[in-house]
């Protein structure tokens, strides 16, 4: 779950990290009030779940209260990087002596938390040459100790007070990273402002699987309606751009099914993993979500292990009887309780294929008719 910048900064601030003074506004009036209260030149930043807001016109540096009002009015309701802006962060403009980069993430290869730091911040980290990037791995069972922080500060070449600030900051950020179950905690730019380090931006992504133990965090809904419905039913759903609705049981085989469709020049409308132990009810919901996508054909690819073929067949029949299925359905159904499932399908006017590629080829043929 991605957090908005203002939420991220609130967490940082709670842990004692220096951030620019500021507040979130939902209207030009509120923005003006905050700017007046701050009594300093301000920055207005659109709050969307994406970077590169500057290029999209989502950041403004008004030089007066009138401009603050005008710019807020312009940005609120506008579309930046594909997102409608409904909130602004209004904060003091800080002195920028240098822009650093700092992030904590998890490195899949080593299975360890990884600190990424650079003296060259402010740009996309992908653009920073490897020589300017410090990578430092943390033993998760020991944590980031002050000597780790000292080593990172040394590798960056920081000195004196800024080194000290960095050493404290790293320890606090790692604490946040672990305590809040973040997957990514990125501060870019981390601004050298006089003798201090100030987090001028904050990008925090919380591990979805750990949300259950963070009732204190705000909830940010990023899913579409269909994704939400799927999630609630224990399914994994991603909308794509084609016209063949797909359902399979397992992430790998679902990907494989999409690949097979593309191999036959078909265009999948979605990724839908109806999981391992989804059962009847989940499968019914999965099919209903597929129906809502206005595709030309539905492809169901089941290799039943935990999933029982009769459950899938029954679910299909249930949906057909309840709300009707207006598009052709191509089914591949093998595995646990295969015979029972096939019998149910046959009794209800469906035919099934034995293999995945035959079924995929048939679905493409129908879609391209």
């Amino acid at each position, binding site marked *: 779950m991605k957090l908005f910048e203002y939420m991220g900064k609130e967490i940082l601030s709670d842990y004692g990290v220096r951030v620019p003074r500021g507040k979130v506004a939902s209207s030009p009036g509120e923005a003006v009030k905050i700017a007046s209260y701050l009594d300093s030149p301000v920055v207005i930043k659109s709050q969307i779940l994406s970077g590169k807001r500057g290029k999209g016109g989502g950041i403004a540096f008004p030089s007066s209260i009138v401009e603050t009002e005008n710019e807020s009015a312009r940005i609120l309701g506008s579309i930046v990087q594909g997102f409608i802006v409904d909130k602004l962060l209004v904060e003091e403009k800080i002195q920028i002596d240098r822009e650093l980069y700092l992030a904590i993430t998890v490195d899949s290869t080593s299975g360890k938390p990884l600190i990424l730091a650079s003296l060259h911040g402010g740009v996309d980290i992908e653009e920073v040459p490897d020589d300017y990037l410090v990578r430092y791995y943390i033993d998760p069972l020991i944590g980031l100790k002050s000597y780790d922080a000292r080593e990172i500060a040394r590798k960056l070449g920081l000195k004196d007070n800024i080194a000290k600030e960095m050493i404290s900051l790293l320890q606090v950020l790692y604490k946040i990273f672990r305590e809040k179950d973040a997957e990514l905690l990125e501060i870019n730019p981390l601004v050298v402002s006089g003798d201090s380090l100030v987090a001028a931006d904050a990008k925090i992504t919380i591990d979805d699987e750990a949300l259950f133990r963070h009732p204190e965090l705000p909830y940010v809904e990023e899913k579409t309606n269909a994704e939400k419905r799927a999630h609630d039913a224990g399914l994994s759903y991603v909308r794509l751009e084609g016209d063949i609705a797909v359902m399979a049981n397992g992430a790998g085989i679902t990907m494989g099914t999409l690949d097979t469709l593309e191999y036959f020049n078909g265009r999948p409308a979605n990724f839908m993993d109806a999981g391992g132990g989804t059962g009847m009810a989940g499968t019914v919901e999965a099919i209903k979500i597929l129906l809502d996508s206005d595709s030309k054909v539905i492809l169901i690819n089941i290799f039943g*292990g935990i999933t029982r073929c009769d459950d899938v067949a029954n679910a299909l029949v249930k949906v057909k009887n309840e709300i009707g299925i207006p598009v052709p359905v191509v089914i591949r159904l093998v595995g646990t309780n295969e015979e029972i499932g096939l019998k149910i399908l046959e009794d209800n006017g469906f035919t099934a294929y034995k293999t995945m590629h035959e079924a995929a080829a048939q679905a493409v043929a129908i879609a391209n008719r």
Partner: protein
Amino acid sequence: MAILINEETRVIVQGATGNQGKFHMLQMLAYGTQIVGGISPGKGGMKIENIPIYDTVLAAKEESEIDAACLFIPAPFAKDAAFEAIDAGIKLIIIITEHIPLNDGIDIIAFARQKGAKVLGPNTFGIVSSGKSKIGIPPNNFFIPGPIGVVARSGTLTYEIVGNLTDNKLGQSTVVGLGGDRVVGLSFVDVLEKFEADEDTEAIVLVGEIGGDQEESAANYIKNHMTKPVVAYIAGKSAPPGKRMGHAGAIIERGKGTYEGKVKALQMAGVSVANLPFEVPGLIRKVL
């Protein structure tokens, strides 16, 4: 022979009295796996079809040696259970549980390394040494003994491919699931190493997917260290960047972990890469 487990491997099931745990424990028993106990706090003393249930892993250890633990523990408690098994000195931990928080996953893997234990998962289907032992959730009737080693990141896709192999009379020595989470225990390289050394394995099928750099590392290892032929299938060719495809690891981020990159690396290492799952048996026939 087989890798990691065989007919003598003594197994406990953690979370043995839950629905999933109980069902699969009995399936494993039916397959022939040496189940020496189930762990279920508060249920110690009861029996499930003659399998003794214990409150703790150490209680089970008082009555039998234990070589492997299989976890069906709900995600919020899985870390504690995995630590319990590792701390008790069990050297192979198979974590079936999905949706374990990432922080818990990395702690488990780190603790296992510290104590010299191997982990499959989290979010693995498990491991099968055909005809000898099964630890995990694959259906019992897919596997036939034979010379093909299979190592994979995801479950049903593996059944699909194993099913194809079996239909083509290509039996499997051992089928290993690494797990679909972003951070997992054993890697392709760890398992390839064992297949290379296993005298009953003649060729290997690697079932990968987009995301991460495990397949690239595997390609590097194959190129430099393997004599046995490897056939691969990589899922996710059609997946758009930035979208997580079900598995926590299956995502192309910042241009890394792409299908093309993986396939190229594998091909450069002499691996035959199948376009579609059903092509795998044919490619295996060619290299055997």
